[in-house]
């Protein structure tokens, strides 16, 4: 586990990671010109590991997940770099092979469970078609497996649910069905794009517990995309913080919360309500990060976070800080990393 959680120690671990992104850039073609949304991202996910990708809206975290499965429309987005999954570059795979990877080796759960199910199909039909997409089994066998899947995602009364239409299910139940579909073919990697954002807080906790349970039962690696740091704290092994399309910090989850290195990470943490944990001083005011995310088409010179950073020095406005080993563990892209002043 120590190896798996150390992003800097690639050479020390002989087993290649399950997923390896190298220099991935995503550029959107807009009417105003090219807009680079992800810039040279490196990311490794090992088998069975949970990596959280965090950052503000528009930092490129969802786009990263979509480009792993090649879901971005090629007419509007170009992807550079390499995305190796079990040694194969997904970006150069023929579409037919890519369709075999989707849903079988890598699957995805979306944010919005209310509209992710086809309104004219029953839950059973959804599961049967998902299973039969990648496995040559009879309808009867697929139905049996479908009921097992609903049991695995803790759906109450699974036999009866199979015959029901999506509109009869609550948001949490629909997300369970979506998770059941995603794990139907025992994928090695699950991309979870804000899977709990659209749900009630109590349901959020249930869905996260479910994902954690399934990960332990089936050994699925999870890339969790979220802007909610509270979700990250008790779920992820490793956290990657993105800002303006770049990775700014990459470290073990525990360390991120104990000793965040990048001023942006510190800002994110300060802006997260932590309830009873700092009850010592009574009410604590949440601090927002001043300013806004830079326009991807006109980024500031130097460090993209520099205009919003309280610690910026003259060098920050000139040079782009590169990702380097942080104090102790992990990686950070900052000229003046370390504890907040």
């Amino acid at each position: 586990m120590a190896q798996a959680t150390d992003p800097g120690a690639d050479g020390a671990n002989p087993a290649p990671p399950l997923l390896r992104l190298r220099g991935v850039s995503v550029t959107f073609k807009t009417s105003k010109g090219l807009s680079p949304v992800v810039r040279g991202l490196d990311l490794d996910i090992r088998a069975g590991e949970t990596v959280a990708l965090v950052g503000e809206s528009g930092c490129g975290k969802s786009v990263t997940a979509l480009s792993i499965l090649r879901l971005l429309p090629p007419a509007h987005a170009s992807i550079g770099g390499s995305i190796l999954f079990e040694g194969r570059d997904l970006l150069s795979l023929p579409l037919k092979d890519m369709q075999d990877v989707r849903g079988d080796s890598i699957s995805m759960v979306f944010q919005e469970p209310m509209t992710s199910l086809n309104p004219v199909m029953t839950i059973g039909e959804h599961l049967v078609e998902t299973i039969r997409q990648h496995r040559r089994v009879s309808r009867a066998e697929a139905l049996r497996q479908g009921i097992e899947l609903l049991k695995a995602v803790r759906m109450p009364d699974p036999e009866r649910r199979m015959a029901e239409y999506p509109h009869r299910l609550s948001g949490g139940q629909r997300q369970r069905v979506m998770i059941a579909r995603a794990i139907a073919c025992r994928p090695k990697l699950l991309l979870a794009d804000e899977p709990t954002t659209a749900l009630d807080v109590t349901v959020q906790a249930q869905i996260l517990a479910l994902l954690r349970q399934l990960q332990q039962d089936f050994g699925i690696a999870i890339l969790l995309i979220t802007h909610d740091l509270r979700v990250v704290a008790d779920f992820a092994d490793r956290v990657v913080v993105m800002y303006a399309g770049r990775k700014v910090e990459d470290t073990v989850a525990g360390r991120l919360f104990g000793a965040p290195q990048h001023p942006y990470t510190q800002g994110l943490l300060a802006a997260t309500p932590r309830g009873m944990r700092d009850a010592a001083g009574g009410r604590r005011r949440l601090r927002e990060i001043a300013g806004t995310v830079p326009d991807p088409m006109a980024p500031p010179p130097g460090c993209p976070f520099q205009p919003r950073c309280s610690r910026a020095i003259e060098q920050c406005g000139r040079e782009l800080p590169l990702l380097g080993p942080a104090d102790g563990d992990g990686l950070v892209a900052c000229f003046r990393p370390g504890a907040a002043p």
Partner: protein
Amino acid sequence: MGGLIGFWRLYRRRRMAVAGASALLGVFLVALLAAVISPGDPWDMAGRPLLWPGQEVGFPFGTDVLGRDILAGVVHGSRVSLAIGFAATMAALLLGVTIGAIAGYFGGYVDDVLMRFTEIVQTIPSFLLILVLVAIFSPSAVNIVIAISVSTWPPVARLVRAEFLSLREREFVQACIVLGMSRPRIILTQVLPNSLAPVVVISSVMVASAILNEASLAFLGLGDPNIMSWGTMISIGRNSLRTAWYMVAIPGIAIIITVMALNLVGEGLNDALNPRLRGR
């Protein structure tokens, strides 16, 4: 099954829609039982020519200029009118749904090319196009069906395209791509069933207009000369319109009843299938 029962519950709320459905059912029954109601060939000269309705016991609707039984004509003509109406609509749906689905799902220049083509066809007055096509090829039943479908598919294509444009962005389609489904499979099994409600509504009106088109062709003398349709009967009676108007009026009423019934059914389907009107 539950869906069908729910649909009927919504449908029967409109009395006119139920009336239309009953009338249509009646026309279907007449077509089905044509050989029972009036056995024999409707072209047979069965009695004295130009008998007015009710003038002679055996001929409740009278006879035409050559002594053919008008009741037999109306009864057997219902088969022809319904068959041409439904066949032409099916063919137009096949064309329109295919073109609309491809244009709407793929978008981009595929959409541009197909939609410009659709608009070109749509700018040609449809009855004129039917007339020209039937005049060029021989006026047989099959050619009439082809001509009607070739000139009436554009509205279907545009309707299906609009449905697909909005449906393809829905998250359940994304979810299917993520699960590894191929595009033809997504179009056929996921998007198409969701886009069919408005197609069902438009198709009942299309059957009605196809029946009218066939009748208009026959009236102009471009109907299939070998089959007795309502249009054929009107064209036969046209010359003696002033002296024996019943020869035109009776098949005319049959057309009106059928077309009205189809339109009422279409309206009822629209109300029952439109989710925005549900619960009213």
